[in-house]
Protein backbone atom coordinates (compact mmCIF):
# COMPACT_ATOMS: atom_id res chain seq x y z
CA UNK A 1 0.00 0.00 0.00
CA UNK A 2 2.80 2.34 0.86
CA UNK A 3 4.29 1.42 -2.49
CA UNK A 4 1.18 2.78 -4.13
CA UNK A 5 1.42 6.07 -2.26
CA UNK A 6 5.11 6.37 -3.03
CA UNK A 7 4.28 5.70 -6.62
CA UNK A 8 1.55 8.34 -6.67
CA UNK A 9 3.79 10.92 -5.07
CA UNK A 10 6.62 10.24 -7.45
CA UNK A 11 4.19 10.27 -10.35
CA UNK A 12 2.89 13.69 -9.42
CA UNK A 13 6.43 14.94 -9.13
CA UNK A 14 7.24 13.69 -12.61
CA UNK A 15 4.20 15.46 -13.96
CA UNK A 16 4.78 18.66 -12.03
CA UNK A 17 8.43 18.95 -13.01
CA UNK A 18 7.54 18.50 -16.66
CA UNK A 19 9.50 15.30 -17.10
CA UNK A 20 10.60 15.35 -20.71
CA UNK A 21 10.05 11.73 -21.52
CA UNK A 22 6.58 11.76 -20.01
CA UNK A 23 5.48 14.78 -21.94
CA UNK A 24 7.02 13.51 -25.16
CA UNK A 25 5.07 10.29 -24.81
CA UNK A 26 1.89 12.13 -23.90
CA UNK A 27 2.25 14.42 -26.88
CA UNK A 28 2.87 11.48 -29.17
CA UNK A 29 -0.24 9.76 -27.81
CA UNK A 30 -2.35 12.78 -28.68
CA UNK A 31 -0.78 12.98 -32.12
CA UNK A 32 -1.36 9.34 -33.01
CA UNK A 33 -4.79 8.90 -31.48
CA UNK A 34 -5.91 12.37 -32.51
CA UNK A 35 -4.95 11.79 -36.12
CA UNK A 36 -6.56 8.37 -36.17
CA UNK A 37 -9.79 9.76 -34.71
CA UNK A 38 -9.81 12.67 -37.15
CA UNK A 39 -9.43 10.28 -40.09
CA UNK A 40 -12.12 8.05 -38.61
CA UNK A 41 -14.48 11.03 -38.44
CA UNK A 42 -13.61 12.06 -41.99
CA UNK A 43 -14.51 8.64 -43.31
CA UNK A 44 -17.01 7.47 -40.72
CA UNK A 45 -19.38 10.43 -40.51
CA UNK A 46 -20.39 10.43 -44.18
CA UNK A 47 -20.72 6.64 -44.13
CA UNK A 48 -22.74 6.75 -40.93
CA UNK A 49 -24.86 9.50 -42.41
CA UNK A 50 -25.60 7.41 -45.49
CA UNK A 51 -26.34 4.39 -43.37
CA UNK A 52 -28.63 6.39 -41.13
CA UNK A 53 -30.58 8.03 -43.89
CA UNK A 54 -30.70 5.86 -46.95
CA UNK A 55 -32.94 2.90 -47.26
CA UNK A 56 -31.65 0.02 -49.29
CA UNK A 57 -31.98 -3.74 -49.02
CA UNK A 58 -28.50 -4.49 -47.64
CA UNK A 59 -28.74 -1.75 -45.03
CA UNK A 60 -29.54 -3.95 -42.05
CA UNK A 61 -26.76 -6.34 -42.99
CA UNK A 62 -24.22 -3.55 -43.25
CA UNK A 63 -25.40 -2.06 -39.97
CA UNK A 64 -24.90 -5.44 -38.30
CA UNK A 65 -21.42 -5.77 -39.78
CA UNK A 66 -20.44 -2.34 -38.54
CA UNK A 67 -21.75 -3.09 -35.09
CA UNK A 68 -19.70 -6.27 -35.04
CA UNK A 69 -16.68 -4.19 -35.97
CA UNK A 70 -17.34 -2.19 -32.85
CA UNK A 71 -17.23 -5.27 -30.69
CA UNK A 72 -14.05 -6.61 -32.23
CA UNK A 73 -11.16 -6.64 -29.76
CA UNK A 74 -8.60 -3.99 -30.74
CA UNK A 75 -5.80 -6.49 -30.37
CA UNK A 76 -7.37 -8.54 -33.16
CA UNK A 77 -7.39 -5.48 -35.39
CA UNK A 78 -3.75 -5.00 -34.44
CA UNK A 79 -2.89 -8.54 -35.37
CA UNK A 80 -4.55 -8.20 -38.78
CA UNK A 81 -2.80 -4.91 -39.54
CA UNK A 82 0.50 -6.41 -38.35
CA UNK A 83 0.07 -9.35 -40.72
CA UNK A 84 -0.64 -6.94 -43.55
CA UNK A 85 2.20 -4.52 -42.88
CA UNK A 86 4.96 -6.86 -41.75
CA UNK A 87 7.68 -7.39 -44.31
CA UNK A 88 6.54 -10.85 -45.25
CA UNK A 89 3.00 -9.58 -45.66
CA UNK A 90 1.25 -8.10 -48.69
CA UNK A 91 2.10 -4.49 -47.84
CA UNK A 92 5.55 -5.18 -46.43
CA UNK A 93 7.17 -3.23 -49.20
CA UNK A 94 5.69 0.00 -47.86
CA UNK A 95 7.92 -0.30 -44.78
CA UNK A 96 5.17 0.93 -42.53
CA UNK A 97 5.59 -1.65 -39.79
CA UNK A 98 6.75 -0.28 -36.44
CA UNK A 99 5.96 3.29 -37.34
CA UNK A 100 3.54 5.88 -36.03
CA UNK A 101 1.77 5.65 -39.35
CA UNK A 102 1.07 1.97 -38.73
CA UNK A 103 -0.38 2.81 -35.35
CA UNK A 104 -2.59 5.45 -36.90
CA UNK A 105 -3.84 2.91 -39.43
CA UNK A 106 -4.62 0.34 -36.74
CA UNK A 107 -6.34 2.90 -34.53
CA UNK A 108 -8.25 4.20 -37.54
CA UNK A 109 -9.56 0.68 -38.16
CA UNK A 110 -10.61 0.42 -34.53
CA UNK A 111 -12.29 3.83 -34.31
CA UNK A 112 -14.14 3.96 -37.62
CA UNK A 113 -16.86 1.36 -36.88
CA UNK A 114 -17.60 3.24 -33.67
CA UNK A 115 -17.91 6.53 -35.50
CA UNK A 116 -20.13 5.02 -38.19
CA UNK A 117 -22.44 3.38 -35.70
CA UNK A 118 -22.76 6.44 -33.47
CA UNK A 119 -23.34 8.73 -36.44
CA UNK A 120 -25.95 6.44 -38.00
CA UNK A 121 -27.78 6.22 -34.70
CA UNK A 122 -27.79 9.97 -34.18
CA UNK A 123 -29.01 10.62 -37.71
CA UNK A 124 -31.74 8.06 -37.29
CA UNK A 125 -32.80 9.71 -34.05
CA UNK A 126 -33.53 12.97 -35.81
CA UNK A 127 -37.18 13.88 -36.44
CA UNK A 128 -38.14 11.71 -39.40
CA UNK A 129 -39.57 14.59 -41.41
CA UNK A 130 -36.51 16.78 -41.01
CA UNK A 131 -34.74 15.69 -44.19
CA UNK A 132 -38.01 16.19 -46.08
CA UNK A 133 -38.33 19.66 -44.65
CA UNK A 134 -34.84 20.61 -45.73
CA UNK A 135 -35.45 19.24 -49.18
CA UNK A 136 -38.70 21.13 -49.50
CA UNK A 137 -37.06 24.33 -48.31
CA UNK A 138 -34.57 23.90 -51.10
CA UNK A 139 -31.40 22.80 -49.33
CA UNK A 140 -28.89 21.08 -51.59
CA UNK A 141 -27.05 17.86 -50.72
CA UNK A 142 -24.09 19.47 -48.96
CA UNK A 143 -26.27 21.99 -47.19
CA UNK A 144 -28.51 19.21 -45.96
CA UNK A 145 -25.51 17.23 -44.70
CA UNK A 146 -24.29 20.30 -42.82
CA UNK A 147 -27.69 21.13 -41.33
CA UNK A 148 -28.43 17.56 -40.29
CA UNK A 149 -24.97 17.29 -38.75
CA UNK A 150 -25.66 20.44 -36.81
CA UNK A 151 -28.93 19.00 -35.59
CA UNK A 152 -27.22 15.75 -34.65
CA UNK A 153 -24.11 17.42 -33.29
CA UNK A 154 -24.45 15.89 -29.86
CA UNK A 155 -24.47 12.46 -31.41
CA UNK A 156 -21.45 13.36 -33.52
CA UNK A 157 -19.67 14.65 -30.45
CA UNK A 158 -20.38 11.31 -28.83
CA UNK A 159 -18.93 9.63 -31.90
CA UNK A 160 -15.67 11.56 -31.58
CA UNK A 161 -15.45 10.82 -27.89
CA UNK A 162 -16.18 7.15 -28.38
CA UNK A 163 -13.64 6.83 -31.15
CA UNK A 164 -10.90 8.74 -29.37
CA UNK A 165 -11.59 7.08 -26.06
CA UNK A 166 -11.35 3.64 -27.62
CA UNK A 167 -8.03 4.20 -29.36
CA UNK A 168 -6.23 6.29 -26.77
CA UNK A 169 -6.77 3.59 -24.19
CA UNK A 170 -5.98 0.51 -26.25
CA UNK A 171 -2.62 -1.21 -25.99
CA UNK A 172 -2.70 -4.48 -27.94
CA UNK A 173 -2.83 -3.13 -31.46
CA UNK A 174 -0.52 -0.21 -30.72
CA UNK A 175 2.04 -2.60 -29.29
CA UNK A 176 1.82 -5.06 -32.16
CA UNK A 177 2.10 -2.63 -35.07
CA UNK A 178 4.09 0.10 -33.36
CA UNK A 179 6.68 -1.99 -31.61
CA UNK A 180 6.79 0.34 -28.62
CA UNK A 181 10.01 1.94 -29.84
CA UNK A 182 11.38 4.43 -27.37
CA UNK A 183 11.25 7.95 -28.70
CA UNK A 184 9.33 6.88 -31.78
CA UNK A 185 6.25 4.72 -31.34
CA UNK A 186 5.94 4.56 -27.59
CA UNK A 187 2.64 5.95 -26.38
CA UNK A 188 1.10 6.14 -22.92
CA UNK A 189 -0.48 2.69 -22.96
CA UNK A 190 2.53 0.85 -24.34
CA UNK A 191 4.83 2.84 -22.05
CA UNK A 192 2.82 1.61 -19.09
CA UNK A 193 3.47 -1.95 -20.27
CA UNK A 194 7.20 -1.28 -20.48
CA UNK A 195 7.47 0.47 -17.15
CA UNK A 196 5.45 -2.21 -15.43
CA UNK A 197 7.61 -4.92 -16.88
CA UNK A 198 10.66 -3.01 -15.69
CA UNK A 199 8.98 -2.60 -12.31
CA UNK A 200 9.35 1.16 -12.52
CA UNK A 201 6.06 1.63 -10.79
CA UNK A 202 6.26 5.39 -10.39
CA UNK A 203 6.59 6.01 -14.08
CA UNK A 204 3.84 3.54 -14.83
CA UNK A 205 1.53 5.30 -12.41
CA UNK A 206 2.49 8.67 -13.85
CA UNK A 207 1.63 7.52 -17.36
CA UNK A 208 -1.59 6.05 -16.05
CA UNK A 209 -2.54 9.33 -14.40
CA UNK A 210 -1.91 11.29 -17.57
CA UNK A 211 -3.97 8.79 -19.54
CA UNK A 212 -6.81 9.06 -17.03
CA UNK A 213 -6.59 12.82 -17.21
CA UNK A 214 -6.89 12.70 -20.98
CA UNK A 215 -9.90 10.41 -20.82
CA UNK A 216 -11.49 12.61 -18.19
CA UNK A 217 -10.92 15.75 -20.21
CA UNK A 218 -12.71 14.17 -23.15
CA UNK A 219 -15.72 13.18 -21.12
CA UNK A 220 -15.78 16.54 -19.40
CA UNK A 221 -15.93 18.40 -22.69
CA UNK A 222 -18.84 16.32 -23.90
CA UNK A 223 -20.69 16.67 -20.64
CA UNK A 224 -20.27 20.42 -20.58
CA UNK A 225 -21.51 20.80 -24.13
CA UNK A 226 -24.39 18.47 -23.44
CA UNK A 227 -25.50 20.25 -20.32
CA UNK A 228 -25.18 23.63 -21.90
CA UNK A 229 -27.90 22.91 -24.43
CA UNK A 230 -31.14 24.69 -23.59
CA UNK A 231 -32.87 22.31 -26.01
Amino acid at each position, binding site marked *: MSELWDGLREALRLIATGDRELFAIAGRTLLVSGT*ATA*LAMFVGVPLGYLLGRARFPARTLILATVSTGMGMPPVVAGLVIWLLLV*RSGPFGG*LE*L*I*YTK*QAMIIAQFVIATPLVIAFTAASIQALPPRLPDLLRVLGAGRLRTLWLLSREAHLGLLAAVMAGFGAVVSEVGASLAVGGNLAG*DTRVLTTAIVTETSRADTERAIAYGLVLLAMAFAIVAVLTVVQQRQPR
Partner: protein
Amino acid sequence: MAVAVAVAVACGGGAGTGEGGLGGTMILATTTSTYDSGLLDELVPIFEAETGVTVKVIAVGTGAALRMGSDGNADALLVHAPEAEAEFVASGHLVSGRLIMTNDFVLVGPADDPAGASIAADLPAALAAIAARGRFVSRGDDSGTHKKELALWASAGIDSAAVAREETGQGMGATLNVADQRNAYTLTDRATYLALRDVLDLVVVVEGDAALLNVYHAYVVSPERHRGVKSAQAGAFVAFLTEARTQALIGQFRAEEFGRPLFTPAATKMTSSGGGG
Protein backbone atom coordinates in the same frame (compact mmCIF):
# COMPACT_ATOMS: atom_id res chain seq x y z
CA MET B 1 -8.43 1.99 -44.74
CA ALA B 2 -7.17 3.16 -48.12
CA VAL B 3 -7.38 6.77 -46.96
CA ALA B 4 -5.29 6.07 -43.89
CA VAL B 5 -2.67 4.15 -45.83
CA ALA B 6 -2.41 6.92 -48.39
CA VAL B 7 -1.91 9.50 -45.68
CA ALA B 8 0.64 7.28 -43.96
CA VAL B 9 2.69 6.67 -47.08
CA ALA B 10 2.60 10.33 -47.95
CA CYS B 11 4.03 11.12 -44.55
CA GLY B 12 6.95 8.87 -45.35
CA GLY B 13 7.56 5.28 -44.37
CA GLY B 14 10.68 6.13 -42.51
CA ALA B 15 14.07 5.96 -44.19
CA GLY B 16 16.70 8.35 -42.99
CA THR B 17 20.16 9.16 -44.19
CA GLY B 18 22.62 10.44 -41.63
CA GLU B 19 26.13 11.67 -41.54
CA GLY B 20 27.47 8.10 -41.55
CA GLY B 21 26.34 7.63 -45.09
CA LEU B 22 24.93 4.12 -44.94
CA GLY B 23 21.51 5.29 -43.90
CA GLY B 24 18.30 3.33 -44.09
CA THR B 25 16.21 1.56 -41.52
CA MET B 26 16.57 -1.88 -40.07
CA ILE B 27 14.65 -4.04 -37.67
CA LEU B 28 16.57 -5.73 -34.88
CA ALA B 29 14.66 -8.49 -33.15
CA THR B 30 15.91 -9.29 -29.70
CA THR B 31 14.71 -10.77 -26.44
CA THR B 32 12.88 -8.89 -23.76
CA SER B 33 15.50 -9.71 -21.17
CA THR B 34 18.26 -8.27 -23.36
CA TYR B 35 16.14 -5.22 -24.01
CA ASP B 36 15.16 -4.75 -20.38
CA SER B 37 18.78 -4.73 -19.31
CA GLY B 38 19.15 -1.43 -21.09
CA LEU B 39 22.28 -2.47 -23.00
CA LEU B 40 20.79 -1.67 -26.38
CA ASP B 41 19.65 1.76 -25.16
CA GLU B 42 23.33 2.51 -24.76
CA LEU B 43 24.78 0.80 -27.83
CA VAL B 44 22.17 1.49 -30.50
CA PRO B 45 22.42 5.32 -30.44
CA ILE B 46 26.17 5.04 -31.01
CA PHE B 47 25.65 2.82 -34.02
CA GLU B 48 22.89 5.08 -35.35
CA ALA B 49 25.04 8.17 -35.03
CA GLU B 50 27.99 6.57 -36.78
CA THR B 51 26.14 5.00 -39.65
CA GLY B 52 22.98 7.03 -40.04
CA VAL B 53 21.00 3.81 -39.85
CA THR B 54 17.76 3.91 -37.89
CA VAL B 55 17.47 0.77 -35.80
CA LYS B 56 14.03 -0.37 -34.75
CA VAL B 57 14.50 -2.62 -31.74
CA ILE B 58 11.63 -5.03 -31.31
CA ALA B 59 11.79 -6.99 -28.08
CA VAL B 60 9.89 -10.26 -28.02
CA GLY B 61 10.57 -13.75 -26.74
CA THR B 62 13.46 -15.69 -28.31
CA GLY B 63 11.08 -18.01 -30.09
CA ALA B 64 9.21 -15.08 -31.57
CA ALA B 65 12.46 -13.36 -32.53
CA LEU B 66 13.69 -16.48 -34.32
CA ARG B 67 10.38 -16.75 -36.13
CA MET B 68 10.60 -13.13 -37.17
CA GLY B 69 13.96 -13.99 -38.63
CA SER B 70 12.70 -17.06 -40.42
CA ASP B 71 9.75 -15.12 -41.82
CA GLY B 72 11.97 -12.34 -43.00
CA ASN B 73 10.25 -9.80 -40.78
CA ALA B 74 13.49 -8.70 -39.12
CA ASP B 75 16.93 -7.87 -40.48
CA ALA B 76 19.16 -8.80 -37.56
CA LEU B 77 18.74 -10.91 -34.45
CA LEU B 78 20.36 -10.79 -31.03
CA VAL B 79 19.28 -13.92 -29.19
CA HIS B 80 20.48 -16.43 -26.65
CA ALA B 81 19.11 -19.91 -27.41
CA PRO B 82 21.90 -21.79 -29.17
CA GLU B 83 20.04 -25.06 -29.86
CA ALA B 84 17.09 -23.30 -31.42
CA GLU B 85 19.37 -20.94 -33.30
CA ALA B 86 21.27 -23.87 -34.79
CA GLU B 87 18.13 -25.09 -36.54
CA PHE B 88 17.62 -21.80 -38.29
CA VAL B 89 21.26 -21.55 -39.23
CA ALA B 90 21.09 -25.04 -40.67
CA SER B 91 18.01 -24.18 -42.68
CA GLY B 92 19.77 -21.14 -44.03
CA HIS B 93 17.53 -18.42 -42.60
CA LEU B 94 20.25 -16.97 -40.38
CA VAL B 95 23.70 -16.15 -41.62
CA SER B 96 26.82 -14.33 -40.49
CA GLY B 97 26.32 -15.44 -36.91
CA ARG B 98 28.78 -14.03 -34.34
CA LEU B 99 29.18 -14.75 -30.65
CA ILE B 100 28.76 -11.44 -28.89
CA MET B 101 28.66 -11.87 -25.13
CA THR B 102 27.67 -14.16 -22.31
CA ASN B 103 26.14 -13.86 -18.95
CA ASP B 104 24.63 -16.35 -16.66
CA PHE B 105 21.28 -17.37 -15.35
CA VAL B 106 20.61 -17.53 -11.67
CA LEU B 107 17.90 -19.21 -9.65
CA VAL B 108 16.26 -16.67 -7.42
CA GLY B 109 13.75 -17.14 -4.64
CA PRO B 110 12.32 -15.72 -1.46
CA ALA B 111 14.85 -14.52 1.11
CA ASP B 112 13.85 -17.18 3.63
CA ASP B 113 14.30 -19.94 1.04
CA PRO B 114 11.49 -22.24 2.21
CA ALA B 115 12.51 -25.05 -0.12
CA GLY B 116 16.10 -24.98 0.99
CA ALA B 117 17.38 -24.56 -2.54
CA SER B 118 20.43 -22.55 -1.50
CA ILE B 119 21.78 -25.35 0.63
CA ALA B 120 21.20 -28.04 -1.97
CA ALA B 121 24.23 -29.96 -3.19
CA ASP B 122 24.01 -28.97 -6.78
CA LEU B 123 21.65 -27.48 -9.32
CA PRO B 124 19.58 -30.63 -9.98
CA ALA B 125 19.16 -31.13 -6.23
CA ALA B 126 18.08 -27.55 -5.80
CA LEU B 127 15.52 -27.97 -8.54
CA ALA B 128 14.26 -31.15 -6.90
CA ALA B 129 13.92 -29.30 -3.61
CA ILE B 130 11.93 -26.55 -5.24
CA ALA B 131 9.73 -29.09 -7.01
CA ALA B 132 9.02 -30.75 -3.70
CA ARG B 133 8.63 -27.87 -1.32
CA GLY B 134 8.40 -24.63 -3.24
CA ARG B 135 6.48 -22.68 -5.85
CA PHE B 136 7.98 -21.87 -9.23
CA VAL B 137 7.15 -19.17 -11.74
CA SER B 138 8.07 -19.71 -15.37
CA ARG B 139 8.31 -17.35 -18.34
CA GLY B 140 6.24 -19.78 -20.33
CA ASP B 141 6.75 -17.68 -23.47
CA ASP B 142 9.08 -19.78 -25.58
CA SER B 143 11.93 -17.39 -24.86
CA GLY B 144 15.60 -18.28 -24.37
CA THR B 145 15.09 -18.19 -20.63
CA HIS B 146 12.07 -20.42 -20.90
CA LYS B 147 13.89 -22.91 -23.06
CA LYS B 148 16.81 -22.93 -20.65
CA GLU B 149 14.45 -23.53 -17.76
CA LEU B 150 12.83 -26.48 -19.49
CA ALA B 151 16.27 -27.90 -20.33
CA LEU B 152 17.31 -27.66 -16.71
CA TRP B 153 14.25 -29.51 -15.47
CA ALA B 154 14.88 -32.16 -18.06
CA SER B 155 18.51 -32.69 -17.18
CA ALA B 156 17.59 -32.91 -13.50
CA GLY B 157 15.23 -35.70 -14.43
CA ILE B 158 12.16 -33.79 -13.29
CA ASP B 159 8.99 -33.71 -15.34
CA SER B 160 8.34 -29.97 -15.63
CA ALA B 161 4.65 -30.55 -16.13
CA ALA B 162 4.46 -32.20 -12.73
CA VAL B 163 5.96 -29.25 -10.93
CA ALA B 164 3.71 -26.62 -9.44
CA ARG B 165 4.58 -23.94 -11.97
CA GLU B 166 2.83 -20.81 -12.99
CA GLU B 167 3.50 -19.54 -16.48
CA THR B 168 3.28 -15.81 -16.96
CA GLY B 169 3.74 -15.71 -20.71
CA GLN B 170 5.50 -12.39 -20.24
CA GLY B 171 8.95 -10.86 -20.09
CA MET B 172 11.55 -11.35 -17.41
CA GLY B 173 10.72 -8.22 -15.46
CA ALA B 174 7.05 -9.08 -15.23
CA THR B 175 7.87 -12.68 -14.35
CA LEU B 176 10.19 -11.57 -11.56
CA ASN B 177 7.44 -9.34 -10.24
CA VAL B 178 5.04 -12.24 -10.14
CA ALA B 179 7.58 -14.48 -8.41
CA ASP B 180 8.25 -11.72 -5.94
CA GLN B 181 4.57 -11.33 -5.14
CA ARG B 182 4.05 -15.05 -4.81
CA ASN B 183 7.15 -15.81 -2.76
CA ALA B 184 8.14 -18.23 -5.49
CA TYR B 185 11.32 -19.28 -7.25
CA THR B 186 12.19 -18.48 -10.82
CA LEU B 187 14.99 -18.69 -13.32
CA THR B 188 16.29 -15.35 -14.49
CA ASP B 189 19.24 -13.94 -16.34
CA ARG B 190 21.50 -12.14 -13.94
CA ALA B 191 21.30 -8.86 -15.82
CA THR B 192 17.59 -8.41 -15.41
CA TYR B 193 17.76 -9.52 -11.79
CA LEU B 194 20.47 -7.03 -10.99
CA ALA B 195 18.59 -4.28 -12.69
CA LEU B 196 15.51 -4.95 -10.61
CA ARG B 197 17.22 -6.08 -7.43
CA ASP B 198 16.26 -2.98 -5.50
CA VAL B 199 12.54 -3.37 -5.99
CA LEU B 200 12.42 -7.09 -5.45
CA ASP B 201 12.58 -9.12 -2.25
CA LEU B 202 14.02 -12.07 -4.15
CA VAL B 203 17.61 -13.24 -3.58
CA VAL B 204 19.98 -15.46 -5.56
CA VAL B 205 19.77 -19.04 -4.33
CA VAL B 206 21.82 -20.87 -6.93
CA GLU B 207 24.46 -19.51 -9.28
CA GLY B 208 27.61 -20.40 -11.09
CA ASP B 209 26.68 -23.84 -12.36
CA ALA B 210 27.99 -24.48 -15.86
CA ALA B 211 24.52 -25.30 -17.07
CA LEU B 212 23.48 -21.79 -16.21
CA LEU B 213 25.67 -20.13 -18.79
CA ASN B 214 23.76 -17.88 -21.17
CA VAL B 215 25.28 -17.32 -24.58
CA TYR B 216 24.33 -14.45 -26.91
CA HIS B 217 24.71 -14.55 -30.67
CA ALA B 218 23.89 -11.98 -33.29
CA TYR B 219 22.79 -12.94 -36.80
CA VAL B 220 21.87 -11.38 -40.08
CA VAL B 221 18.69 -12.69 -41.66
CA SER B 222 19.57 -14.28 -44.96
CA PRO B 223 18.96 -11.88 -47.83
CA GLU B 224 18.95 -14.81 -50.20
CA ARG B 225 16.09 -16.49 -48.42
CA HIS B 226 14.16 -13.26 -47.92
CA ARG B 227 13.93 -10.43 -50.34
CA GLY B 228 13.77 -7.04 -48.68
CA VAL B 229 16.19 -7.83 -45.87
CA LYS B 230 18.43 -4.87 -45.18
CA SER B 231 21.53 -6.99 -45.19
CA ALA B 232 23.93 -4.08 -45.45
CA GLN B 233 22.57 -2.38 -42.37
CA ALA B 234 22.16 -5.66 -40.48
CA GLY B 235 25.68 -6.74 -41.34
CA ALA B 236 27.02 -3.40 -40.20
CA PHE B 237 25.23 -3.78 -36.90
CA VAL B 238 26.58 -7.26 -36.23
CA ALA B 239 30.06 -6.05 -37.11
CA PHE B 240 29.57 -3.12 -34.77
CA LEU B 241 28.70 -5.44 -31.91
CA THR B 242 31.92 -7.37 -32.36
CA GLU B 243 34.17 -4.32 -32.61
CA ALA B 244 36.66 -4.02 -29.82
CA ARG B 245 35.30 -0.68 -28.74
CA THR B 246 31.74 -1.96 -28.47
CA GLN B 247 32.91 -5.09 -26.69
CA ALA B 248 34.67 -2.89 -24.14
CA LEU B 249 31.46 -0.94 -23.61
CA ILE B 250 29.58 -4.19 -23.11
CA GLY B 251 32.10 -5.24 -20.50
CA GLN B 252 31.65 -2.04 -18.56
CA PHE B 253 27.89 -1.79 -18.91
CA ARG B 254 26.43 -0.79 -15.53
CA ALA B 255 29.44 -2.35 -13.82
CA GLU B 256 29.74 0.50 -11.35
CA GLU B 257 26.12 0.34 -10.47
CA PHE B 258 26.05 -3.33 -9.61
CA GLY B 259 29.66 -3.88 -8.65
CA ARG B 260 30.09 -6.32 -11.49
CA PRO B 261 29.36 -6.23 -15.20
CA LEU B 262 26.02 -7.56 -16.40
CA PHE B 263 27.53 -9.14 -19.50
CA THR B 264 30.88 -10.69 -20.36
CA PRO B 265 32.11 -9.72 -23.83
CA ALA B 266 32.91 -12.82 -25.85
CA ALA B 267 33.39 -11.85 -29.46
CA THR B 268 37.14 -12.09 -29.34
CA LYS B 269 37.18 -15.45 -27.61
CA MET B 270 35.75 -17.51 -30.39
CA THR B 271 34.72 -16.57 -33.84
CA SER B 272 31.72 -18.49 -34.96
CA SER B 273 30.87 -18.39 -38.60
CA GLY B 274 27.44 -19.77 -38.23
CA GLY B 275 27.49 -22.60 -35.76
CA GLY B 276 26.32 -22.58 -32.21
CA GLY B 277 28.40 -21.30 -29.28
